[in-house]
């Protein structure tokens, strides 16, 4: 397999010459591959940036919320138990648990130091709850809390981000889908171009067949040509796309999504798979088209 691909791509000027040069159509194929790669770079960048965003927001959410109970000391235990009982019957809540004194102390330590006399201060009790599945109905829960434990306050301010995180995830998939579609379009365009080229070289192919050229010899002349065009065009398009991304102003963390539309780390390498993929697609498309054409003649 690999060997045959290498054989197909080994330069052979004599064999390449048997197919006449095509002038501007050659340039069009290259141009199209370039534009497609350019667009694919953005789709890929978008997908990756959205992916990073989704990850960050998902982490922040972690699907937990806190209930804070502030009550006179003699009612604290009662209310805590009432809240826990209530939570255990609330749909959409996987787990609820009161933090221990040690845990609360650890949470407060950064502000008040480690020697906080918890017993003597009116510190609210914290209950950590974890959602499951679709999550809970936060308005309903608030009302029930108000009825059963007047000192309990539900703090789930991170919840509003959930739709955003989901949207970011969808955007990531969308960007990836766009890359796939763009590559498929590249393949379709190259197929058409190859088909046109084979049709306009009908006589050349007939002569070659007649003097004893094998199908692979004839197909290679076309395959090499279109693969190299796709590769060079897509490489130029990718480079142009990367330069444009690189020139985008960097806004640091605060600027968020728009300025984050670049590649990070290995993302830059991923972009360079685009020309390789384009070339591979052109290779396969031209080869299939050439053999289909050759199959129609003796």
């Amino acid at each position, binding site marked *: 397999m690999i060997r045959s691909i290498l054989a197909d791509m080994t330069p052979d000027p*004599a*064999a390449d*010459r*048997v197919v*006449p*040069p095509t002038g501007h159509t050659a340039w069009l194929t290259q141009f199209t591959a370039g534009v497609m790669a350019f667009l694919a770079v953005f789709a890929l960048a978008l997908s990756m940036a959205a992916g990073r965003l989704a990850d960050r927001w998902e982490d922040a959410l972690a699907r937990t919320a806190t209930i804070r109970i502030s009550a006179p000391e003699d009612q604290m235990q009662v209310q805590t138990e009432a809240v826990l009982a209530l939570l255990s019957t609330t749909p959409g809540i996987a787990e609820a648990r009161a933090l221990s004194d040690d845990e609360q102390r650890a949470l407060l330590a950064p502000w008040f130091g480690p020697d906080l006399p918890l017993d003597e201060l009116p510190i609210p009790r914290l209950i950590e709850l974890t959602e499951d599945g679709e999550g809970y109905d936060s308005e309903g829960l608030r009302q029930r809390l108000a009825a059963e434990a007047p000192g309990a306050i539900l703090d789930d301010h991170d919840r509003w981000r959930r739709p955003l995180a989901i949207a970011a995830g969808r955007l990531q998939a969308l960007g990836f889908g766009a890359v796939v579609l763009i590559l498929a379009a590249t393949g379709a365009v190259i197929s058409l171009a190859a088909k046109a080229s084979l049709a306009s070289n009908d*006589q*050349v192919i*007939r*002569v*070659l*067949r*007649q*003097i*004893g*050229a*094998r*199908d692979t*010899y004839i197909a290679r002349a076309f395959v090499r040509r279109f693969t190299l065009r796709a590769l060079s065009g897509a490489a130029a398009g990718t480079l142009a796309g990367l330069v444009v991304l690189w020139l985008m102003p960097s806004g640091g963390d605060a600027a968020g999504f728009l300025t984050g539309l670049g590649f990070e780390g290995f993302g830059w390498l991923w972009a360079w798979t685009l020309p390789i993929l384009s070339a591979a697609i052109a290779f396969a498309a031209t080869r299939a088209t050439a053999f289909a054409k*050759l199959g129609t003649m*003796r």
Partner: protein
Amino acid sequence: MIAFDNVAYSYGGGELLSEVSLSLAPGSFHFLTGPSGSGKSTLLKLCYAELLPTAGQITIFDRDARGLSRDDVARVRRRIGVVHQDCQFLDHLPVATNVTLPLAVTRRETSAQDLEDLLAWVGLSHLAGAMPPELSGGERQRAAVARAVIMSPDVLLADEPTGNLDWEMSVRLLTLLVELNRMGKTIVIATHDMNLIRMAKSQVATRVLRIKDRRVQLAGADL
């Protein structure tokens, strides 16, 4: 080399050739004649597996033409030089490159001297660098002969090779073909030119096949 056994061929309408049985022995020299449209070119195409018989069996180099894979067909054609009635070339490449094309497609080289000798042999030395569309009909035919023989094929099939040539050139070409035959090549020439056939008969033992009423018959001593 090539044998037909009760072969019939039709392009889709009625049968053009019927009950054709013949055998081209190694080193033989055949002429193929018949009225225009009788199927001479078609019969030659059957010989190099451009067409497959609609009935009967054709054996090419001891192999059934129908059983040849596409690569087999390519290999068979390297052993059969063909001069087409409408000689086709790669118009964007010079004559010399066209002539050496059969070697190029099998990744073989030809020595400059051999090429020069060959072009001189067909009288085209001065046109080695010309483009095929610039050639006259006769020059095209000679270039086609040169291309057909450069692989030193076992069989040479020529379809009206002298159609565009004056008598002097025709005789020269015939001499070339007779020479090839003396070197052991099997030759088949489709032609209307009775003078050419008589001329050949005076130089070499030939057989004349005539297509008449869809059948191929051996022509008598009248030629």
